[in-house]
C-alpha cells in the first residue's frame, strides 16, 4: 500500500514551513533513511528522510513552496512491486498513523523532544484587533512582521545607535539564535558585539551585570527563562539591588531576555511562567509583550532604560505576525498598559500569550452580547494599575488571564489592587483564569488541561456578568 510522506514538524511549535528542495525525483527508488527533501522554517533547516522502502511515486508539493502546513502530504512512496501510477492517484484520506518519525537535525535541544503537532488552542493568532499607538502619526505605513523579526530589528537598531549595546548568550551568534531571534546580528556586528557563551547561565548573567556596572549595555539572552533559574541570584541580588545598596552610585543598564512560559510538549522543567517571580522584585522592570509592534517598541525602550529589565518573550508568539508601524525610531513607553479592545460589560486583563485567549474569548462573548474590554498590560512591573482601574470603573467586572500558576500569580496581585482601588465599583468578585496548580505534564491531553483555554475565559467572564 502506498505511503504518504507528510510535512514534518521541526519543533513542537512549528505550524508550517518551506519545502526548500527535493533531493529525489519521481521514479527514484528510495529506502528507509534516505534523505529525500530539505525543508526550512525561519528557525532552522532539516532533512526529510524516507521511512519506507519503495519508489518515490509522486511529488505533491514542488520545490520552493512556502507555508506548507505541518502534516500536509508532500509525496507518495509506492511499496516495491506496487503500481506507481495507481499509488500516485489522488486519495482523500490521510492516515495519521503514517506520520513520519523525523529526526530534527540542527534543532535546539528542548525543541527536538517530539515531532508533535502544535495542536493547542492558541496556535493560530486571532484576528488582530490591535489599534495603533496613539502617538503613531496618522497615515503611517504598517508593515506585517513576526514577533521574532520585530525583536531582531529592535536589537539591530539599538546596536547601530549605541556602540555600548552588545548581545550575549548561548547560540546567539554562529547558530543565529536557538530560536532565530538574533538572526543576522553576527554578520552585521561581528563577534565582538554578538557573543556566543558557553552553557553557563549563572556565570554569563553575572558577567553581563558586571559589564553593565562598568558602563556597557548588555542584552543577555537566555535560551529560555527556565534556564535563568540558575542565574536568578545574579538577576535579583546583583542586578536588581545594587543601585539601592550603593545609595544610587551604581547603575545597571541590562536587559535579560528570552522565551518564557510554556511552549508545547516540553514537560515541566521547560514550561514555566516567570511573570510573577520577577515582578515580585523591586529594582527590576518586567516587560511581557504580546504583539510584534509592542515587542519592538518595548525592547528598544528596554535597551535604552538605565535599569535592569527582564523581558519575557514567548516561543509560540515568535512566529505570529502583526502590523508594525514603519517608523525610523519606534519606541514605546515602559509601564503603560494598552486597551486593545473596547467594551462595556467586563474587563479582561492579560499579557503576552494570555492575550490570545483574551481576544478570542472577547469575540466569543460578543456573539452572546457580552462586550469585553481587553487590556494588554505589556509591562508587568511597574504595573499600570490606573488603566485597569479606569476600565473596571466602567465595566464593574474583571477577569485576569495568565498561563502561570494561581498562587501569588499576577492575577492575585491585580485582584488585590482592584479591591484596594476600585472596591466600590466592583459588581462581582475579580476572577482569575490561570494555569492549573500542577507541574506541566507532557501528554498532549494533560498539557491542554493544565493550560487555560478560551472556554475558561468565556466562562469566567459570563460568571462575573451573572449570565
Amino acid at each position, binding site marked *: 500500500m502506498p505511503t504518504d510522506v507528510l510535512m514534518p514538524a521541526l519543533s513542537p511549535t512549528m505550524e508550517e514551513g518551506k519545502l526548500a528542495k527535493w533531493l529525489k525525483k519521481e521514479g527514484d527508488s528510495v529506502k528507509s533513511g534516505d534523505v529525500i527533501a530539505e525543508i526550512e522554517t525561519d528557525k532552522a533547516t532539516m532533512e526529510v528522510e524516507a521511512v519506507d522502502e519503495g519508489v518515490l511515486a509522486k511529488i505533491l508539493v514542488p520545490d520552493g513552496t512556502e507555508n506548507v502546513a505541518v502534516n500536509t502530504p508532500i509525496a507518495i512512496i509506492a511499496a516495491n512491486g506496487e503500481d506507481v501510477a495507481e499509488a500516485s492517484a489522488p486519495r482523500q484520506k490521510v492516515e495519521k498513523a503514517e506520520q513520519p518519525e523525523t529526526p530534527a537535525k540542527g534543532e535546539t535541544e528542548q525543541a527536538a523532544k517530539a515531532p508533535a503537532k502544535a495542536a493547542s488552542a492558541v496556535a493560530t493568532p486571532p484576528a488582530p484587533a490591535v489599534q495603533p499607538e496613539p502617538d503613531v502619526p496618522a497615515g503611517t505605513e504598517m508593515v506585517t512582521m513576526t514577533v521574532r523579526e520585530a525583536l531582531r530589528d529592535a536589537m539591530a537598531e539599538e546596536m547601530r545607535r549605541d556602540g555600548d549595546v552588545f548581545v550575549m548568550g548561548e547560540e546567539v551568534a554562529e547558530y543565529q539564535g536557538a530560536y532565530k531571534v538574533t538572526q543576522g546580528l553576527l554578520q552585521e556586528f561581528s563577534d565582538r558585539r554578538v557573543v556566543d557563551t*558557553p552553557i553557563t547561565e549563572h556565570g554569563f548573567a553575572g558577567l553581563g551585570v558586571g559589564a553593565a556596572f562598568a558602563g*556597557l549595555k548588555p542584552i543577555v539572552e537566555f535560551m529560555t527563562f527556565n534556564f535563568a533559574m540558575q542565574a536568578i541570584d545574579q538577576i535579583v541580588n546583583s542586578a536588581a539591588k545594587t543601585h*539601592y545598596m550603593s545609595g544610587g552610585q551604581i547603575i545597571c543598564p541590562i536587559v535579560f531576555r528570552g522565551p518564557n512560559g510554556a511552549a508545547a510538549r516540553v514537560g515541566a522543567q521547560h514550561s514555566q511562567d516567570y511573570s510573577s517571580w520577577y515582578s515580585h522584585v523591586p529594582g527590576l522592570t518586567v516587560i511581557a509583550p504580546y504583539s510584534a509592534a509592542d515587542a519592538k517598541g518595548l525592547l528598544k525602550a528596554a535597551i535604552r532604560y538605565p535599569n535592569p529589565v527582564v523581558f519575557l518573550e514567548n516561543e509560540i508568539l515568535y512566529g505570529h505576525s502583526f502590523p508594525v508601524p514603519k517608523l525610523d525610531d519606534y519606541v514605546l513607553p515602559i509601564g503603560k498598559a494598552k486597551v486593545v479592545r473596547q467594551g462595556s460589560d467586563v474587563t479582561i486583563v492579560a499579557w503576552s500569550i494570555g492575550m490570545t485567549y483574551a481576544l478570542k474569548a472577547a469575540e466569543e462573548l460578543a456573539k452572546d452580547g457580552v462586550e469585553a474590554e481587553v487590556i494588554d498590560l505589556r509591562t508587568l512591573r511597574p504595573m499600570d494599575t490606573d488603566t485597569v482601574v479606569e476600565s473596571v470603573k466602567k465595566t464593574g467586572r474583571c477577569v485576569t488571564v495568565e498561563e502561570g500558576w494561581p498562587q501569588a500569580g499576577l492575577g492575585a496581585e491585580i485582584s488585590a489592587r482592584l479591591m484596594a482601588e476600585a472596591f466600590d465599583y466592583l459588581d462581582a468578585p475579580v476572577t482569575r483564569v490561570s494555569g492549573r496548580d500542577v507541574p506541566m505534564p507532557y501528554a498532549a491531553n494533560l498539557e491542554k488541561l493544565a493550560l487555560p483555554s478560551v472556554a475558561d475565559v468565556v466562562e469566567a467572564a459570563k460568571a462575573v456578568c451573572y449570565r
Partner: protein
Amino acid sequence: MAREPRRSGQAGSERTAASGSDSKVAAGPARRKAAAASGRTAAAKAEAALNAALPQSAPPPGLSREAELEAYRAMLLIRRFEEKAGQMYGMGLIGGFCHLYIGQEAVVVGMQAAMKPGDQVITGYRDHGHMLATGMDAKGVMAELTGRRGGYSKGKGGSMHMFSVEKRFYGGHGIVGAQVPLGTGIAFANRYRGEEAVCLTYFGDGAANQGQVYESFNMAELWRLPVVYIIENNKYAMGTSVARSSAQQDFSKRGASFNIPGEQVDGMDVRAVKAAGERAIAWARGGKGPYILEMQTYRYRGHSMSDPAKYRTRDEVERMRTEHDAIEQVRKRLLEEHKVAEDELKRLDAEVRQIVNEAADFATHDPEPDPAELWTDVIYETA
C-alpha cells in the same frame, strides 16, 4: 553573607552568648567535654594543614624606604579602623554582620601598590580593608557601618555593600562568590572598550568552592579577559578549615583545568604580595588573560562578630600574630634596615589613630538617613 543565622535586633544578648564561654552547650558536664574534645580534634587537624601550607618561597625583592612607610601606614590604618569597628559593634553602634579584615592587611595593601590608576577592584563581604586601600574616606566607610546618611551608600548598604565609582571600587558583595562573575564582567567591559584597565577580583578560600567561580574562569580564559583573581586563603570558610572543605588545597591550581596560571604567595609579606601582583597584573594587561594569586593569609578575629572560636586553637592564632604579623614585619624592617626613627613611626601611629577617631566620631553623630530615602534609588531615574 547570610550563611549564619541573622542576628536579631537586640545585638547585646547574642554577643554575650557567643563570648560567654559555653552557655549554649552547657547541658551537662559530659556533653560539654565531648564538644570541647571534638572541637580540639578539628582544630588540631586544621593547624597541621596550616603548618604544611606555610609559604616557603625565597625572600621577595625589598621595597624602598618610602614604599615600606606607605605600606606600613596603609596597613595600620586598616587595622586601627577595624579595631575601632569591632569596638563600635560591641557598643551597638554597628548592626548586622561585620566581618573584620584584621590580619590580612598585607594582601590589599600589596596589591594596591601593584595597581595602576584606572584598575578596578571588587570583592566579597570582608571589604573594609579594600575600601580603605583604594583611598575611600574612612568617615564615609565608618558612617556606612553605623547606617548613617554620610555613609558611602547613604546608610542603605551597610558593611557588605559599599561602592565608589570614583575610586574604581565596585563593592562589597554579600553573596559568597557572586563578585567573581561580576569582576569578570568588568574586565569584559575593559576589553570591549580597548581600555588598559585590569579588574582585581578578590574572593576567599570559601568562595573558591562556588560553581560560578569556575564558570567565570572558563569565560575569562576563553576570551582572554584582563582580570586577576586574588584568592585570600585565610584558612577558614567561616568555621570550616580548608582541610575540611577543599579537595584541592593548593588554590593556585584551581585554574589549571582552564589553563590559567597561578601562584601561591606569602600574603603576610607585603613585599611578596606586591611583587606577585605586579607579575599578575602585567600578564592580564598584556592581553594574556586571567591570572590567579593565592594569598596565604590569616584572620585573627572571628568570621564575623558572632564567632564561637571553637574551630581553631588560641595557640594557632597567637602564633600567627607573633610570628607572621604583616605590620610587625614591616615595622621591624623600617627600624632595622631603613633606620627609621621610632618617633617617626609613633607620629604615623598617632596620625592614623586620629583619622580613625574622627571617622568614629563622624559615624556616631551623623544623622540617620532621611525617612524619604526609603523610596529613593530603587530605580535610576534619568533627568
